């Protein structure tokens, strides 16, 4: 049985064509009828389809009859392609024996892809090189193959050139999966051990876990035990995704599928945990994943204060398949009750926020993202600050430290100068530079994480016509000269608008911030004074003049309906505002605190 199973993932940089390749695999293996097919089929979230990016594909089981006449089960377990989600890569890879490395024929290898390939190699996965988009005018498949040989050590003669868009070469990919990736070899007779590599919450079935059975057999009706918590559950349903949920009676060693066990408490099914049988439990769990720690925090507040519990519930459910999301309740004078949430990066933050709004029907306010500052106080104690409004009194501060990262930037050599310039602007210090090929350079910099969060990636892309790619590792804390920048509206400090800035940039930031707020705060019945201050010193001031006009000059019998609709729209607009004291602020204002640097 296991001889006919191949478990693989796809490693690709965002935009290198992973979803399209997956679509082709589904089509060629006949997993979908023409009627069922739609683009980016395995992108589960609307969000992904809209943004045209893939965070992670849904796992899928394909039946493929190879050229040797035998039918194989191919399980695709995807890896995310964005730097924010690199931690997830390890979970997916751990459930596979091989990986397709997909590289865009006009872009070449990107920094993030490289990091993920190294991870796969460390796990002894078989790597199959694929050069995609060979149909594009700028495609240079031979150059890219050479690069893959030079940088990763693949044999360039074995790299498959394809166009997922046109369907060219897809069969060769399937054949390579069958021929090169080793089948799993778990012991069916041993105790059950299955790895949970993903899960989500279904309101009818409870928590659904995606699992890979490593050894033993899992059957419907079995009593299973979660090895991390020791809790037991009865399996109510097991099945495979082909790509729709299809129930099966059992899943044996080497197989991939899903499991439902009426698990109501989301905390009971942890991604990375090992499932075993309650009657004949295994002694050792499978190797789990590293717990990843969020590096960015922001406050999420319901626009309607009464939605606080609803938000708590939504966060709890989201966390089920996003173990990296952390949250804890906090209170803001301006915004009421909400949660301080930790994320892996800004994309992660944005996705969580949008999912909360769409999937849980919430309207949220997000405060400016912040890294975690480490502050040594004069009394020798130390505090970690994740919320700028909790910044200690400067009198009590001895030293402030902020997280730094080692950023690895991969770029064609003609852009080295402009990249170094950008890194200097962002308070970076040069570590080293390495030629990967005669034309591709890997530059390493030591940079404050806070600087990378804001618009560093956009800066990289715009300075290099999109050719630069970035990977980074958090290295540790370093001392920095940082100050807290406060914003006052009509003389009252709005805690949710406070931010931390480097001393040298604080004056500029303060001015830019009040200017921005002046533009986005609509005119109100009374004049609104906006001030930026550091400590007790006001460094910038602007004002929004009082509203003078808001009138429908004409309203007669023929257009009453239309005029009422205008008023309705106006009322709707008001609902998107947050009342702070007597001032109404658009809810996006809080995020603009961070966007300031990009205006330069």
């Amino acid at each position: 049985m296991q001889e006919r199973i191949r478990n693989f993932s796809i490693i690709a940089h965002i935009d290198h064509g992973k979803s399209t390749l997956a679509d082709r695999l589904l089509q060629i293996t006949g997993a979908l009828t023409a009627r069922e097919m739609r683009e980016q089929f395995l992108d589960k979230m609307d969000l992904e389809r809209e943004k045209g990016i893939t965070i992670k594909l849904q796992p899928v089981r394909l039946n493929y009859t190879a050229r040797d006449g035998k039918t194989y089960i191919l399980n695709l377990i995807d890896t995310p392609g964005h730097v924010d989600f690199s931690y997830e890569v390890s979970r997916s890879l751990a459930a596979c024996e091989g990986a397709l490395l997909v590289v865009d024929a006009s872009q070449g290898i990107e920094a993030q892809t490289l990091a993920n390939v190294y991870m796969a190699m460390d796990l002894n996965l078989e790597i199959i090189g694929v050069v995609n988009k060979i149909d594009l005018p700028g495609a240079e498949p031979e150059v890219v193959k050479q690069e893959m040989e030079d940088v990763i050590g693949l044999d360039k003669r074995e790299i498959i050139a394809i166009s997922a868009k046109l369907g060219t070469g897809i069969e060769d990919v399937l054949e390579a999966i069958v021929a090169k990736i080793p089948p799993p070899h778990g012991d069916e007779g041993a105790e059950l051990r299955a790895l949970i590599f993903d899960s989500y919450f279904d309101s009818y079935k409870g928590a659904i876990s995606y699992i890979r059975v490593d050894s033993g057999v899992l059957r419907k009706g079995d009593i299973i035990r979660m090895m991390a918590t020791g809790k037991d559950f009865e399996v109510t349903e097991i099945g495979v995704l082909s790509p729709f949920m299809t129930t099966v009676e059992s899943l044996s060693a080497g197989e991939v599928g899903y499991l439902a066990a009426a698990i109501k408490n989301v905390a009971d099914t942890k991604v990375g945990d090992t499932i075993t049988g309650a009657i004949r439990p295994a002694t050792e769990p499978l190797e789990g994943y590293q717990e990843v720690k969020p590096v960015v925090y922001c406050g999420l507040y319901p626009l309607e204060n009464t939605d606080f519990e609803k938000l708590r519930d939504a966060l709890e459910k989201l966390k089920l398949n996003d173990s990296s999301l952390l949250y804890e309740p906090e209170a803001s004078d301006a915004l009421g009750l909400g949660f301080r949430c930790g994320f892996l990066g800004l994309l992660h933050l944005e996705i969580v926020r949008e999912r909360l709004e769409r999937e849980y029907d919430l309207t949220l306010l997000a405060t400016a993202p912040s890294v975690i500052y480490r502050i040594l106080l004069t009394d020798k104690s130390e505090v970690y600050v994740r919320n700028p409004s909790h910044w200690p009194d400067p009198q009590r501060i001895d030293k402030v430290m902020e997280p730094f990262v080692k950023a690895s930037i991969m770029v064609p050599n003609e852009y080295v100068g402009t990249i170094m310039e950008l890194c200097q602007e962002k308070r970076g210090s040069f570590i080293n530079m390495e030629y990967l090929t005669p034309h591709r350079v890997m530059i390493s910099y030591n940079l404050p994480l806070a600087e990378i969060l804001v618009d560093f990636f956009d800066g990289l892309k715009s300075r290099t016509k999109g050719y630069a790619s970035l990977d980074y590792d958090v290295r540790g804390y370093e001392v920095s000269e940082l100050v807290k920048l406060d914003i006052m509206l009509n003389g009252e400090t709005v805690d949710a608008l406070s931010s931390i800035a480097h001393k040298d940039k604080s004056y500029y930031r303060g001015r830019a911030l009040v200017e921005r707020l002046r533009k986005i705060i609509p005119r109100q019945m009374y004049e609104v004074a906006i001030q930026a201050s550091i400590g007790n010193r006001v460094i910038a001031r602007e004002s929004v003049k009082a509203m003078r006009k808001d009138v429908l000059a004409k309203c007669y019998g023929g257009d009453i309906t239309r005029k009422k609709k205008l008023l309705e729209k106006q009322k709707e607009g008001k609902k998107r505002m947050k009342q702070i004291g007597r001032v109404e602020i658009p809810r996006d204002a809080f995020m603009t605190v961070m966007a300031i640097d990009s205006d330069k």
Partner: protein
Amino acid sequence: MGIYIHIPFCLHKCDYCDFYSVPVTNLSLLEDYTCSVINELKLRKNEIDCPFTTVYLGGGTPSLLSPVQIERILATVFAHYQSQGEPEISMETNPATVNLTKLQDLRAAGVNRMSIGVQSFSDQDLKTLGRIHNGRDASAVLSDVSKAGFDNFNIDLIYGLPGQTLAAWHENLSQAMNFNPPHVSAYLLQLDQSTPLARKIEAGILNMLDDELEASLYYFTLNYLQGQGYQHYEISNFAKPNRECQHNLLYWRGSRYLGIGSGAVSFDGQQRNLNQPPLDNYIEALLDHRLPPIKILETMDAGQRIIDVIIMGLRLTEGISRDDFQQRFGIDLLKDYQDIISNCQLQGLLELENDRMYLTKRAYFLSNQVLSQFID
């Protein structure tokens, strides 16, 4: 109860206008339309169970019809609908489309109130607006209106035009005063998207005035016209005592109205229906003695009706009456909208006096801030 008759023809569409109108291609179209209106009046006579007090011929450009055609329409109204007292019969007029004779004929046809679309006495302004008349046409027609025997007439003016100054607007108002009009409507220029004027503004060829100046022009108008003996009775309307437009008051007081003609809207107390353009469909149906296609714009339940009446009523300086709401809807206005009302009072936007509630002077030009709060 009022009857509105829409005449959707224009010689040239003004640059700021996004209402439905069609160019006049030949005179037989006007005749077909007249017959259609007459047929519609006949077909719908049973919709009304109470006498009418006003007729309003609006457009478009009603003055494109001949006095005879107007007379035939009005004769049909009086033949098939019961009137009460001496109804006000208003008609909108473009200064470029009438002369003394025509005005006299229209007076004889039964029209007793003229509303003249002057908009401005400045040729520069009129060019900006894309009007087909000039300042001299306007003055001539205004002299003729009185001569023709209209003791009741209105001058329509627009302020807030690109490039307009307070002095220029003052000049406009004082020129209007030369004709001693019983009624003045002064409208802030509203920029409707997809009009030629809006495109010019977008392209930066013309610039709208800033809110401060617009507000100054408005409050200047209030003070100036009050000084000239006019009562400010609606956000944009001014009248000598007892010269308010009775037809428009019906709208603002939440009454029912019958809308006749292509593009006209009717209101039966619950529902607003539009006689759906285009014109051809309207004419085709009615020449065949069938009712034209309609579109239901809105159907209101009791709660929505109340809001409707509040929103319209607060446009009037007299405001709305608590007793009236008690009688009409059985609700206590002050109780049901207590939060909104006290909030607006606090902001100095609403005032209560005896049983009435009305906007403060400051709130006229900020009225949406009040009205939108009442919307559900």
